[in-house]
């Protein structure tokens, strides 16, 4: 099958949606399908051969955080050209409610279109104003996939209609083994975090507060943080005397990310919400890192209600500190959580997930002539 996949977020910046698309694309290619991905990216970036750049994305405030999105007439023209030349059997758009390439693709294309919804919101003002404007683009979507029950609920509440549930996948074998980073754990004293440092919903602030609570009693405790953001801003929120115990890796390569998961005694996911699935969690699970996560519904589900990772009250630094201390003092429990996580994560492996997605493609392409360019509305 010839599949065109549309990514709404900048390819070079690591994120859940980008990683999802990359892994799906690679799993599909491995399965013998032809795949082309269009994504916002600077033209000269070192992209995989299956990615077509759609130009630079612009940072704009959207729905409570700053997103790098591609919009405007120029981006629309690039998507149009890609569709015209691609000759796809099916178009697979990700996050079509985000003002970026996804909604543009729905605008300029006609034919079998599958859309995957990733995000979940409690209540989104942006979405409530967006829904009527999205209507004509969303009406073209023939098959809808939600990556989590929360994402599905968001979709039903904000846009109406329903979707099939196909959870995110993880390439388990990619994370299973890794050499710890030099100078880090696991040695019983390292807590790890991975994600955007400047994105409030990722909850780094909660972890930093908890670290300040734990650090005085635990002179060897260290914090390993990987992800893009302003280092000075992060260090500014740590009491001066503990700053040399915080390691900021910045944006890490895939290889270093795997190594980072293997360098911690407790991997912390303090997200405050808005997370539909937590791809970061399944990666950490594949690496067998003992996990401590906020008890948002998505995390609770992935971690089997605390079987495959410890949970703490969302947004509560004291609760985080308390649970982290318990884990750090209990190597046996850490080992048990690690084993449970490695087991539980197999049902999220990409090979399983990609097969499900192909079934959706087959359903919508039944008796169809493929994707063509649509005349301007």
């Amino acid at each position, binding site marked *: 099958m010839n599949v065109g996949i549309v990514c709404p977020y900048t390819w070079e910046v690591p994120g859940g949606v980008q990683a999802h698309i990359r892994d799906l694309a690679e799993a599909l290619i491995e399965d013998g399908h032809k795949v082309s991905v269009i994504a916002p990216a600077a033209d000269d970036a070192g992209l995989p051969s299956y990615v077509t750049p759609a130009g630079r994305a612009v940072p704009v405030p959207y729905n409570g955080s700053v997103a790098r999105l591609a919009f405007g*007439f120029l981006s629309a023209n690039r998507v149009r050209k890609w569709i015209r030349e691609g000759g796809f059997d099916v178009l697979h758009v990700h996050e079509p409610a985000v003002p970026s390439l996804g909604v543009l693709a729905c605008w300029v294309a006609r034919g079998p279109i599958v859309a995957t919804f990733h995000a979940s919101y409690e209540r989104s003002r942006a979405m409530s104003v967006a829904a009527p*404007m999205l209507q004509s683009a969303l009406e073209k979507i023939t098959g809808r996939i939600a990556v989590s029950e929360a994402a599905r609920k968001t979709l039903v509440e904000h846009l109406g209609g329903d979707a099939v549930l196909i959870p995110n996948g993880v390439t388990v074998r990619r994370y299973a083994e890794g050499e710890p980073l030099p100078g880090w754990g696991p040695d019983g004293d390292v807590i790890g975090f991975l994600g955007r440092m400047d994105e409030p919903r990722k909850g780094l602030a909660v972890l930093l507060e908890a670290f300040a609570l734990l650090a005085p009693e635990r002179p060897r405790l260290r914090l390993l943080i990987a992800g893009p953001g302003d280092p000075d801003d992060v260090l500014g929120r740590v009491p001066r005397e503990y700053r040399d115990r915080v390691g900021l890796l910045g944006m890490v390569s895939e290889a270093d990310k795997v190594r980072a998961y293997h360098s911690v005694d407790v991997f912390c996911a303090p997200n405050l919400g808005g997370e539909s699935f937590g791809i970061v969690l399944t990666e950490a699970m594949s690496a067998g890192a003992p996990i401590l996560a906020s008890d948002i519904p998505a995390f609770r589900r992935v971690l089997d209600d605390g079987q495959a990772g410890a949970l703490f009250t969302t947004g509560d630094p004291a609760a985080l500190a308390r649970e982290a201390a318990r884990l750090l003092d209990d190597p046996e429990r850490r080992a048990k959580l690690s084993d449970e996580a490695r087991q539980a994560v197999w049902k999220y492996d990409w090979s399983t997930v990609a097969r499900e997605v192909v079934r959706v493609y087959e359903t919508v392409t039944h008796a169809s002539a493929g994707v063509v360019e649509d005349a301007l509305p």
Partner: protein
Amino acid sequence: MTTTLILVAAVVVVLFAVYVSWRAGRLDRLHIRLETAQAALDAALLRRAAVCLELAGSRILDPATSLVLAAAAHEARTAGPDEREHAESDLSRTLRAVVDQERFREKLAEHPAGAALLEELDTAVAKVVYSRRFYNNAAAVTRAAQRRWLARTLHLAGHTDPPRFFDIDDEPPESLASG
């Protein structure tokens, strides 16, 4: 001798009373000026959000641009007092990202309704800048007046809190500023 003293004291008391009432009157005028400036600022912000929403709903733009703009304008329009500065700054940033797209002005001008909307947007953006400067000036003067020794001792300002400055990023899009 005593008569002279009493007379002098009386004159001093009268002069002081006149002075106090003059200061109180000035403070009162400053408060009125502040309220007027605040109303103007509020109107300018609402107008800017309204023009953005109209542009977003005009079907002249591509749907992604419309969405970005509509979401930011909606946030700004519905933000509570504590979130307002943040939401309005976000709208300014979004406007810059939208309007500073390559060939945005030309593309909009091709459309019959586009040119008029751009003109309206120009005006709305400029008025936010102006009215915010004027409001902050009024706030600064009022705060200084409220802080003076006499005003504090005699409670001339009553129990009103010192006015807050309205602190936002209202930098207009480049193509508007120069156009």
